[in-house]
């Protein structure tokens, strides 16, 4: 199935934000990987990096960062790789997923999800 393009958008702004980097290991950052700040924003930091550090004082998912920053998920992933490299943030959650089999979930996780839903 070949996708139709939805429209064209100039990636220049994205290019500027990420300094033209990319292609490292950001693809391993799941959309719900939880990011936590390990240090304070520094004065000489790129503003997007500082914004991320302020948003992840408490754990926050990659998609939530993306929504709060108004930046596409793929751009946030690249910015996060920079912060991971310097240890300014850490990842709390790594999704164990094998596309063909689907992720495995222990019975306790499913039971707790069920209880949480029943409380809704």
């Amino acid at each position: 199935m070949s996708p139709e393009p939805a429209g064209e958008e100039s990636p220049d702004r994205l290019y500027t934000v990420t300094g033209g980097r990319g292609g490292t290991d950001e693809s391993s950052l799941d959309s719900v990987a939880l990011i936590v700040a390990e240090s304070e924003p520094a004065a000489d930091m790129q503003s997007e990096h500082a914004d991320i550090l302020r948003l992840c004082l408490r754990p926050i998912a990659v998609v939530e960062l993306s929504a709060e920053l108004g930046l596409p998920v793929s751009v946030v992933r690249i910015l996060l790789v920079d912060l991971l490299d310097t240890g300014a943030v850490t990842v709390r959650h790594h999704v164990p997923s094998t596309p063909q089999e689907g992720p495995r979930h222990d019975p306790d996780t499913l039971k707790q999800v069920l209880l949480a839903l029943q409380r809704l």
Partner: protein
Amino acid sequence: MPSNASERNTPAPGRTPLAATIGNALKIVIVGGFGVGKTTMVGAVSEMRPLSTEEVMTQAGAEIDDLRGVRDKRTTTAAFDFGRITVDATRVLYLFGAPGQKRFWFLWEQLFIGSLGAVVLVDTTRVEDSWYAIDRLEHHGTPFIVAVNRFGPGPDLERVRGALDLSNDVPLLECDARRRESGRDVLITLVHHLASMERARSVLKETP
């Protein structure tokens, strides 16, 4: 919303940060054709105001892996929305509403990765919009259930099952995406389904 938005540890006004103890995130995806009520369902069950974000894709549908290369390529921006439900002190469940327009369907598979399972929302006046979702979920091996969002009178569930060529193993139920209890029941049905699949899997493993 907290009365004092400048309170420490409140990074942005209006945000509802997760508890500091949360260390594990789970994901469920809601898919279906254009306008079937995916966003409505996410909003009905989410503990926070649903958020919207976007993913930039290359024309080929692959996720951007080299932004330098992308300068010369046509890119596509697909919006999707999500909400969340805190499970317990350490776990949170994110709910994704996949974009329904046909030209964004290629994004779905990326959303399936790492998800617990999926809900296929069906509008009985446009059942054929769900075929693609079911096909991709089966292909990807992502467990799913089907929920019929009733906008008005329509065929009963057995007819819908027939029209979707849905195996009897896949739970099928009615819902009203606008109602929290209804969205909750859909998610509970999915989790029961996941639990029974896990049980079947472990039985298979134990059988020599």
